[in-house]
Structures are given as structure tokens and as C-alpha cells.
């Protein structure tokens, strides 16, 4: 049932828009586009010793994409590239239905997305964009 996707918790998470905005003078920036729906995510990061010191994002996308970005906004500070890659893998595994840890409590809200394969990209787009932003900061 499609409606399962839009439980109050995930609607509230998206509406919180925690961490939304832009950083002044970020160390790295990346833009991610969804070829399926045209959604666009921009991520700014500042690093401190290889770890995310601060991040901000701008999402022009669906509720699932905005909710994933808000989860990132709440929890991604302090992660290094390897830890971020691990979180991204765990989110992908959660969506794929394989056993995985849920590193952040909000990610449980995305369990109903499992049944909607075409929406997995909506959830992953902010994570992939943050990975790219971190990469760009480290290469700068």
C-alpha cells in the first residue's frame, strides 16, 4: 500500500528540514541529480581533520528525498569518509531488504520504501551527494 510511505514520522522528518541551507565558504560542494524525476540535491561540507565539521543542503525533491536529507542533517556531522560510506551502504541494504544495522533511528521510517524500488533513488540521492561533496572537499 503506497500510503504506508507517508506515515506521520517521515512527513515530520521531511518538514523539519534539519540542516537545510547553504554554508559560507564550504570546503566541498556537490550537486546530485535524479535522472528519473529531475530531483536535485546540493550538499555543502566543511571538514576538520577529514571529518564532517558542518554540512548544509538544498533539496528540490520529493518528501522521501527531503526526509533523507533531514536525517543526514541531524546525524552526519562528525563522520569521516569511511563512516559515511558505511552509512550509505547500510541505507542501501535497508532498502534492498537485506539485514542491516540502522545507524540512525530515523532510518527505520524508510522501511516501507523497500516495496517501491523506483523510489529507492529518492532516499539515496542525498547520501550519494554528500559522499561526492566530501570527496570534492578532500580533493580540494
Amino acid at each position, binding site marked *: *500500500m*503506497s500510503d504506508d510511505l*507517508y506515515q506521520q514520522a517521515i512527513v515530520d522528518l521531511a518538514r523539519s528540514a534539519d540542516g537545510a541551507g547553504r554554508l559560507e565558504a564550504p570546503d566541498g560542494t556537490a550537486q546530485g541529480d535524479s535522472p528519473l524525476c529531475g530531483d536535485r540535491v546540493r550538499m555543502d561540507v566543511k571538514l576538520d581533520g577529514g571529518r564532517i565539521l558542518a554540512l548544509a543542503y538544498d533539496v528540490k*525533491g520529493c518528501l*522521501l528525498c527531503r526526509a533523507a536529507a533531514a536525517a543526514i542533517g541531524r546525524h552526519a556531522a562528525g563522520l569521516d569518509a569511511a563512516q559515511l560510506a558505511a552509512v550509505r551502504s547500510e541505507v542501501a541494504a535497508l532498502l534492498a531488504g537485506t539485514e542491516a544495522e540502522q545507524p540512525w533511528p530515523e532510518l527505520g521510517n524508510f522501511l516501507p520504501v523497500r516495496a517501491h524500488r523506483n523510489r529507492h533513488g529518492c532516499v539515496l540521492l542525498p547520501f550519494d551527494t554528500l559522499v561526492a561533496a566530501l570527496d570534492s572537499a578532500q580533493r580540494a
Partner: protein
Amino acid sequence: MSFTAAKWRGHFPLLAAHRDLHYLDNAATGQLCEAALDAVTSHELLHRANVLRGTYRLAEQADAAYENARRQVAAYLNAASADEVVFTAGTTASINLVAHAFGEGLNAGDEVVLSLAEHHSNFVPWQMLRERRGVLLRILPLTADGRIDLSRLAETLTPRCRLVAVTHASNVTGAVTDLAAIVAVARAVGARVLVDGAQAVQHGPVDVAALGADFYAFSGHKAYGPTGVGVLWGRGEALAALPPFLGGGGMIGRVTVEETTYAPPPRRFEAGTPPIAQAVGLGAALDWLRVQPWADMHAHTARLAQRLIDGIAVLPGLTFLGPRDLKQRLPIVSFNLEGIHPHDACQVLDGHGVAVRGGHHCAQPLMDFFGVQGAVRASLAPYNDEADIDALLAGLKDAMRKLG
């Protein structure tokens, strides 16, 4: 022949199997009509063989079925000859065929004119041609409601224009292109005209002779036929002037170690084994469509489109894409509701048994023009009825309650 939506719906097996489905994504894919299904099944069961190769009876039967399909398509298009009908994999393949074959004859500085309303399949092949041949792309602008701005024709089609490639009807707004005006200006500057008919053929027989264009492209699956097959119609002399696109079996006159001569159209453009059963199915679909009571069917879908437009007009935060005048448009209705992403709206609608499409509809330049990322699109067919529209409207209200 009297028309009712219920009777028409009875010709579509999938809809009989999904009685609770409100299928409003016909601009993406129409459902398969039983005429096409029966023709494909019968062909595969009784006449399956490769075409244009064998001398045994089964192969000759396959040849006859395939060439009969060509005649059925020609009849639907009012083409001068079945030899003007090239079977392809779909609209995209048809346009790419022209972009390559016609594009071979273009040089740096030659101009190709598109409109801002084109589907990516009528944008990207020309951008790729620009990269290969250095041609200049000129873009016909749109009026505020998304119609091609005909007042800009004369300045856009210069004497360097070699080809105009435009949609017959927008897959987003449903706006119908005034092809006569475009063809007249194109003729005046000596340019060919290619029409993307992907959204038009399913709304009634097309008269390519009257349109005056040189090429007409469309897909089988949007015209209640099988997937994997499409058509490039080309005026006889226009096709004859083109070199082949793909090389291989079936498209040759004679092959020696030194050189190859090519078959005349349409075989010149059908390298390899074509989509035989799919072509047979498409021919059957168009043969059936050709004799439907289109005046009644147009009146029916226009009534439904008006019901939908009136229904969404009262919703708060509505953005409507396209002309509101039903005389200028097909029953394709795209819109947004403030604060609700099209994908989220479509997902909630799915919970109501309503199948509509949300997203950029492979028309991102048009989305940029409207200043939106995407839209919800309901695209109607004659088998739709008032219950489909009402289910959509009820689902939208639910989406607004949940997400707005």
C-alpha cells in the same frame, strides 16, 4: 458504430483483469488492444519465421503478414505507398534514424530547428548531431501556456535551416502543434520537416499527405499496440534520398568484399531481423483503430478532460501547465499542487488505484520553461470514464490532506 467507454474498455484485456484500476498514464503507454494481442498470438503460434529470407511456405506466410502490417500502417497514415513505412523500434529509434541518415548530409553552420516543447527523444539526437557535424540548433520559443509561438517562425527558420523537427502534440501539455504553419515556412526556406507523432497517432488516424511533412515518427505501444515496434514514415523521395543508418542483413542490394549496395526504402532502413510479430500486432491495432467512431471518442475524452480540469481548478495551490482551451490540446493534463512533489502525489494516488505519471516526463527543457522540476500528468484514453477522473480527484484531495 455507437461508442461507449465501457464497450471500448472491453477490447482491452488488461483492463478487464484489473477492474479497479484507474489507468490514466496513456501518454506513457496505452493498453494493448485485443486486436493486437490476437494478431501477435496468432502470428507467433502459426506463422513465426524470419522475413525476407526464406522460400518455404512458413517464411512466405511471415513475409505476407509483415508486409500486410506495412500496408495497414500506410492506410492509417494515408501514405501514398506502403514502401514509405519503415518499421523501427519506436519513436526514439525513428528520430535517431533521421538524425543519423539525414544528418550525414549536414555540415557545420547548417541549422536544425526544434521547439522548446520537445520530448528528450526529439532533443538529444539533435544535440548529438550537433556534436558530430557542427550544426546549429535553433529553438522555437513557446507562448506562456506552452504552445509553440508561431509568431517567431520566420525569424527562427533562416535560409540555413535544413530540417525542422517538432512534436505533433506535447506529451506534457497536450498542446497540438499547428503543423501547417510550420510546414509552410519550412518549405519557403527549403527545409525538411520531421514530426514526432508519438502523442498524436493514438487519438485518431493521421493524414500525412495533408500534413505536408517529410517524416513522421511514432511508437506502437502508445497506439494500443505492442512495445518494441515503431514507425518512421517518410515521403518517398525523402526516404530515397537518405543513406542507410544501421548496416547488416536485410538492407543490402549486393555485398562484395569491396563494397555494398543498398536496398531501396523501406528495407534500406531495416537492418537485421525486424520486430516481426510486433509489427503485425501494430498493424492490427491501427487497422482496428482506423474504423473507430473518432468523433464520438474525441467528444468523450474532451468531456473527461474538462471534468478533470474543472475538478483541479478549485484545488488550492494549483499550477496548470498548458493551454486550457480543449480545442488546442489533447486530453493530456499536467499540473502541480503547491508543496506536494509530483512523485509523492502519484504514490498516494496509487493507493487509490489511480495510475498517473509524475516527474519531468522526459521534457526537462519544457519543465525549465515552466519553472518547475516536474508535474503530475493524467493522460486520457477513450476507455477512461468519469469514475477514473473522480478517483483521481479524490486521491488528490487525500494527498493534500496527507502531504499538503
